[in-house]
């Protein structure tokens, strides 16, 4: 019932469906309504990791090593937990630099090195060839088996009589090449993104999962009675029960750990994983869901592996059925035609998905990093003069796809028979693991250099070839077996799988150890021995600090000049003139530049053009092409350092700015306070003027009033007249005194007063002032008491000014003292530590606490000035305080209302005088 025709028809129908999905996906993408822009499609597309290896090979592996098939899926699960750091960083870097392949990534990191890009490409192609052979083997074996339905037979006749045209597998390879070309290289896109392809891959992931689970359910619950039943029976079967434990025979922990490690690297650095997870990533936020959805997919597709393996081993107990085919042969042996077809389609799905994505990724690398740089170097090809190169680019890629599949076919034909599926795959895993040091080191360590990466990759690749690839040829009979048993040239130490006598490892672990030792050792060692060039340093900073810099940062590592027209023409040759014009218009729109108005391109535009070009022909080639139209000034290492310095300087500036703003704030506060003080002073000046005028008006008013009376009444009595004239004279004197005092105060305050300092005896001053005011005290019947020491040191001061102070204090005392005959004023002079102190104490009305504070202010008179006639100008005490202050002394008052008041002042002794007073004294003496 399952004829060859039906199977082929079903296969083509399935591939047709894939094309439909891809076509729909591309259409939607062109319309701007992407169907892959969601995390679920992204996670499913990552499952391109599961190939025929998973679909057929895992069961085969499980049949020989039990749970030993699992590290290949546990590794990616663990790695997914680190994606938040590693994958995110790689996505950011790739998007910012328009990186489209893993070769481009490594080349770009190490100074856009063409050599490095070429080496990575060669390693990737050679390393992946066995992996593609694995898919071909799976498809061709599964086709050969299902074609014999309902018979269950191993295709012994698969061993082809002749290569190529006489071999079905060759046709399968060519069909796959045709599919891939149709899928991936229909047109050229600067971003190398294939939305339709991703949609198809995601669909394939669903198909293979469903198919595998369908077979798993059938075996577990159709052929047996569930998990427990299978395991029970396996336990009872001597040939099988050793698979249920982690015994020494089925593997050891070293293998387990090294396979886990290997698969952790594979999930990051396989070219197809790089393609789907980084290049085809639409939005970095999709990573969030993929971190757990992708491991969940891996878990789901592995649940039934062991039951199918055990079921198969027990079902085909004769042992003549290859365990790699159990997924297909178990349904066939149970006559489940449709399930067998589903399983076949599932396997086909797993294989085609891998082959299509892998070869597209590889062909991009071959074209951008291997062929184009070489062609561009061949001046005689005159590629630089070709108007449109996009056709050439597509041609190279298509050719590369065919070549890669032919290589895969050859490996399958030459070496494929000797190995199980998983073992072939592990050869490829070990090859791509060589990229890990250069990439991981490259994005976390600025010190890695181009030469270091080159040496590390080359060394790792050589060791891989010697310890894993060549032995696979030897085991297939294409190299003499003596190469394995006796070592190269018969030197035992060089036996490829016991290198330098190292034993106890399986092939893969052995290779992993030696290749990583050589790779990491050379990478780190060589990097440490040399200084990176300017270009390397710039790129290293961009990569390592990718999470800090903005995407446009690349242009700062460039100096030079170019014309816009030349750039546009250059882009036109690779992208087609139409796309190039669109790109430039878009740039002009985004940067608000009138297109056609500027002729000189700025560094930013050059960088933009280079990154566009890099998307199409790779960063290394793009660099060369751009350099051909741009007069570039090479960046010296110190310039790069300078640019990096600038970035840190910006930080420093911002810190300085903060400090400045804080200082500014302080200054503002000070200014505000000064302004307040100024306003207060202004108000005080106004108050002063209004008070002065008020004080002047009072005597003026009475002078005028009495003058008018005298003027209007000439017949006034002589006695009356004399009295009035006396008042006028007294008021005039008061007016004069007031004006003198105001002038005096103004002079002292402005510093214009004249001071005649000399050494004076304070006792003399006091005695003189007392005799000058004795009449005043007598009139008021006030007893005056003097308490003066016999000798006092001389002080340096202005004698007349001190007299003024004393007179003022004494007249105040007389004014406010009791006038009923019990009044008493006591003057004392004594010496303190560094000054002379004079106290003038009365037993008058005293001054209240509140008034004590204000009496030294101008025009402040104690008492109700509205009702009582003021008894002074209100300037005496302020003037006194100014005078005493001038000589460095203090004037203050102590008083209790009703008891009396004591005014005291000090004059510093000569030794304690300040320099200011020395200077003034000197001036005064002169």
């Amino acid at each position, binding site marked *: 019932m399952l004829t060859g025709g039906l199977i082929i028809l079903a296969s083509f129908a399935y591939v047709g469906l894939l094309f439909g999905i891809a076509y729909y996906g591309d259409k939607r993408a062109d319309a701007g309504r992407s169907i892959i822009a969601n995390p679920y499609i992204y996670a499913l597309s990552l499952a391109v990791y599961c190939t025929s290896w998973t679909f057929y090979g895992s069961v085969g592996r499980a049949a020989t090593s039990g749970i030993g098939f699992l590290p290949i899926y*546990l590794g990616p699960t663990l790695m997914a937990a680190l994606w938040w750091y590693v994958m995110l960083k790689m996505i950011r870097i790739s998007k910012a630099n328009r990186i489209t392949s893993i070769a481009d990534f490594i080349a770009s990191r190490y100074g856009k090195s063409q050599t490095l890009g070429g080496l990575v490409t060669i390693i990737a192609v050679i390393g992946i060839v066995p992996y593609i052979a694995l898919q071909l083997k799976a498809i061709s074996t599964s086709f050969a088996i299902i074609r014999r339905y309902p018979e269950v037979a191993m295709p012994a006749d698969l061993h082809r009589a002749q290569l190529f045209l006489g071999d079905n597998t060759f046709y399968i390879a060519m069909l796959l090449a045709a599919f891939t070309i149709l899928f991936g290289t229909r047109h050229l896109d600067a971003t190398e993104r294939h939305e339709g392809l991703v949609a198809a891959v995601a669909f394939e992931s669903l198909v293979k999962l469903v198919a595998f689970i369908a077979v798993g359910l059938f075996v577990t619950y159709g052929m047996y009675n569930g998990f427990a039943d299978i395991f029970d029976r396996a336990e009872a079967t001597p040939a099988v029960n050793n698979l249920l434990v982690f015994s020494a025979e089925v593997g050891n922990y070293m293998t387990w750990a090294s396979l886990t490690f290997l698969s952790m690297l594979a999930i990051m650095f396989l070219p197809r994983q790089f393609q789907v997870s980084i290049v085809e990533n639409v939005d970095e936020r999709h990573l969030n869901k993929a971190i757990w959805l992708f491991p969940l997919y891996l878990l789901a597709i592995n649940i039934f592996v062991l039951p199918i393996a055990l079921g198969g081993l027990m079902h085909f107990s004769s042992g003549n059925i290859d365990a790699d085919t159990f997924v297909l042969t178990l349904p066939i042996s149970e006559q489940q035609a449709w399930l067998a077809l589903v399983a076949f389609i599932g396997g086909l799905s797993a294989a085609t998905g891998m082959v299509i994505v892998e070869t597209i990724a590889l062909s991009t690398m071959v074209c951008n990093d291997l062929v184009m740089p070489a062609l561009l170097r061949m001046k005689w090809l005159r590629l630089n003069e070709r108007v449109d190169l996009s056709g050439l680019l597509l041609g190279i890629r298509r050719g590369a796809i065919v070549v890669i599949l032919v290589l895969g076919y050859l490996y399958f034909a030459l070496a494929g028979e000797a190995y199980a599926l998983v073992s072939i795959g592990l050869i490829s895993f070990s090859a791509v693991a060589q990229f890990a040091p250069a990439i991981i080191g490259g994005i976390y360590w600025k010190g890695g250099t181009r030469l270091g990466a080159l040496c590390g990759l080359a060394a790792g690749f050589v060791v891989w070839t010697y310890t894993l690839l060549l032995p696979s040829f030897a085991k297939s009979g294409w190299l003499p077996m003596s190469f394995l048993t006796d070592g190269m040239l018969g030197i035992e130490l060089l036996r490829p799988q016991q290198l330098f006598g190292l034993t106890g490892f399986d092939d893969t672990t052995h290779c992993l150890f030696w290749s990583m030792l050589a790779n990491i050792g050379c990478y780190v060692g060589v990097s440490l021995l040399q200084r990176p060039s300017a270009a390397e340093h710039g790129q290293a900073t961009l990569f390592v600090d990718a999470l800090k810099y903005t995407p446009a940062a690349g242009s700062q590592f460039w100096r030079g000049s170019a014309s816009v027209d030349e750039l546009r023409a250059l882009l036109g040759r690779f992208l087609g003139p139409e796309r190039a014009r669109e790109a430039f218009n878009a740039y002009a729109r985004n940067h608000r530049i009138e297109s056609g108005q500027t002729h000189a391109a700025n560094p930013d535009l050059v960088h933009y053009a280079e990154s566009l070009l890099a998307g199409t022909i790779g960063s290394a080639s793009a660099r060369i092409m751009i350099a051909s139209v741009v007069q570039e000034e090479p960046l010296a290492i110190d310039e790069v350092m300078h640019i990096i310095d600038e970035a840190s300087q910006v930080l420093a500036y911002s810190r300085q700015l903060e400090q400045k703003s804080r200082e500014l704030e302080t200054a503002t506060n000070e200014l505000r306070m000064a302004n307040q003080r100024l306003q207060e002073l202004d108000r005080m000046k106004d108050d002063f003027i209004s008070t002065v005028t008020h004080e002047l008006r009072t005597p003026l008013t009475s002078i005028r009033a009495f003058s008018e009376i005298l003027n209007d009444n000439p017949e006034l009595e002589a006695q009356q007249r004399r009295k009035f004239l006396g008042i006028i004279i007294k008021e005039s004197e008061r007016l004069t005194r007031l004006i003198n005092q105001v002038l005096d105060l103004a002079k002292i305050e402005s510093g214009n007063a004249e001071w005649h300092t000399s050494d004076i005896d304070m006792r003399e001053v006091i005695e003189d002032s007392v005799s000058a005011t004795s009449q005043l005290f007598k009139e008021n019947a006030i007893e005056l008491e003097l308490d003066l020491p016999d000798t006092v040191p001389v002080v340096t001061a202005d004698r007349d000014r001190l007299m003024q102070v004393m007179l003022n204090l004494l007249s105040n005392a007389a004014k406010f003292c009791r006038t009923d005959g019990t009044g008493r004023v006591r003057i004392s002079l004594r010496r303190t530590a560094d000054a002379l102190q004079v106290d003038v104490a009365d037993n008058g009305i005293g001054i209240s606490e509140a008034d004590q504070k204000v009496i030294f202010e101008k025009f402040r008179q104690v008492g109700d000035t509205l009702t009582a006639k003021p008894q002074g100008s209100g300037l005496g005490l302020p003037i006194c305080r100014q005078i005493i202050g001038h000589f460095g002394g203090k004037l203050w008052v102590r008083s209790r209302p009703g008891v009396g008041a004591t005014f005291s002042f000090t004059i510093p002794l000569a030794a304690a005088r300040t320099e200011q007073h020395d200077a003034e004294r000197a001036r005064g003496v002169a």
Partner: protein
Amino acid sequence: MVRPGVKGQRLVALFLLGGLLLNYPLLDLFARGGEIFGIPVLYVYVFSVWALLIALMAIIVETRGD
């Protein structure tokens, strides 16, 4: 914009935990035969740890706030 923060650190811790649980010597403790519900202990252990890791990753990543 995805920012590795405390979530990223939790994921790294989970990576280390997974690496420990799924390797020698802890793995060896469960690799000596025996059955749970008729299924070998080794098989149950590895798949349970695996499922647990995935669940924890989902919880860490999907929890709002950082």
